[in-house]
């Protein structure tokens, strides 16, 4: 392969590059009169990422939605479990905010996660669902920090993420192979996880990165890989539901509570519209 566009052509999936890489580079060379062209390089890089998204979702709008939603559910679960995880790993000695038994809480949280990794069939999905519900009730009874507040609705919503992910994987029937999130989100999740463990940067910055950074990343990538914006939108939708459950539990006595619902709703609405636009761009010629 000509070295001129060898790096940018790596944006394409391996199988696609092996089959068509030489032809792509040769055409780019010819169109640029055998000179380096930023326009050609940019086109190959962006279309390579777009091809990744298209191939891993078979170009189906339904699977773009499903893939993005699954990623958001995973991130949400990560956020819910990160705090007790840092305690168990010994990264923090501060247990003031935790339940009577963070170890037990974490155990209940991890069981569905292990089940999720193994989920490819309906019986496993049912088992994950039952365990997740039991974990939510258990955490509620123990006043667990895992779900931020001693509110059963909030706990169930948090565990709903793991339940939704399990059922989606079971419906797909292909297990882990079907779960191919955008690379950008995998890196972001890894960053969030390590940030929690090492507390660098702090938890607040990490949350801001997720809730503000992810929609911005999604907007930038909307015509390249709309799954990122779908994930960001779903995360804000979960945030909306969680805020509603908080308000229902504690009542509305402050403008802040209304903002807690209005802002996530607004982001969710705009994100949904733009996601639909991005998916249409990805799947239509």
């Amino acid at each position, binding site marked *: 392969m000509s070295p001129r566009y060898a790096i940018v052509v790596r944006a394409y999936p391996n199988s696609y590059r092996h089959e*068509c890489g*030489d*032809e*792509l*580079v*040769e*055409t*780019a060379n*010819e*169109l640029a009169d055998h000179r380096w062209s930023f*326009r*050609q390089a*940019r*086109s*190959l*890089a*962006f*279309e*390579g990422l*777009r*091809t990744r998204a*298209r191939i891993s979702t078979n*170009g189906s709008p339904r699977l773009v939605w499903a893939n993005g939603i699954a990623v958001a559910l995973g991130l949400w679960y990560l956020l819910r479990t990160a705090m007790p995880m840092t305690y168990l790993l010994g990264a923090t000695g501060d247990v003031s905010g935790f339940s009577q038994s963070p170890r037990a809480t974490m155990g209940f949280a991890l069981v569905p996660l292990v089940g999720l990794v193994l989920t490819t069939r309906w019986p496993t999905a049912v088992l994950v669902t039952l365990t997740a519900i039991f974990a939510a009730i258990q955490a509620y009874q123990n006043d667990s920090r895992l779900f931020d507040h001693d509110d059963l609705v909030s706990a169930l919503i948090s565990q709903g993420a793991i339940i939704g992910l399990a059922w989606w994987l079971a419906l797909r029937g292909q297990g882990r192979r079907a779960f191919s999130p955008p690379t950008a989100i995998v890196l972001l999740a890894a960053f969030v996880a390590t940030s929690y463990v090492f507390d660098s940067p702090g938890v607040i910055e990490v949350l801001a990165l997720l809730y503000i950074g992810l929609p911005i990343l999604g907007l930038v990538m909307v015509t390249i890989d709309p799954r990122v914006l779908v994930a960001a939108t779903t995360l804000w939708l979960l945030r909306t539901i969680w805020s509603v459950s908080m308000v229902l539990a504690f009542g509305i006595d402050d403008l802040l509570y209304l903002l807690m619902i209005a802002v996530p709703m607004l982001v969710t609405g705009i994100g949904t519209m733009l996601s639909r636009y991005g998916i249409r761009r990805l*799947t*239509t*010629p």
Partner: protein
Amino acid sequence: MREPTYFVLLTLLGGPLHGYGIAKRAEALSEGRVRLAAGTLYGALDRLTDQGLISVDSEDLVNGRRRRYYRISQSGRQAVLAEVERMRSSVAVADNLSGGQAPAVAT
């Protein structure tokens, strides 16, 4: 249908072409307005192939590199002609509204 896609299909009405040929012919037909870069071109070709509007006609080797020729399918021909008809009726509307003062377009 986006403009690059429209011109890709139009170029293939004249017979099978390879990627570079499609890009150069689209540029000529559009009088330089549509300049397809390699990534955009093959992205459009892949999506059109997935939708059955075009297909790979043949392959040959040039300097040891594979080169695919694409041809338009019957449904692709219908799609591009439907787009032409849609644009023609849009021009007719503009003509009516402007009393025949709308600028002439090449068809």
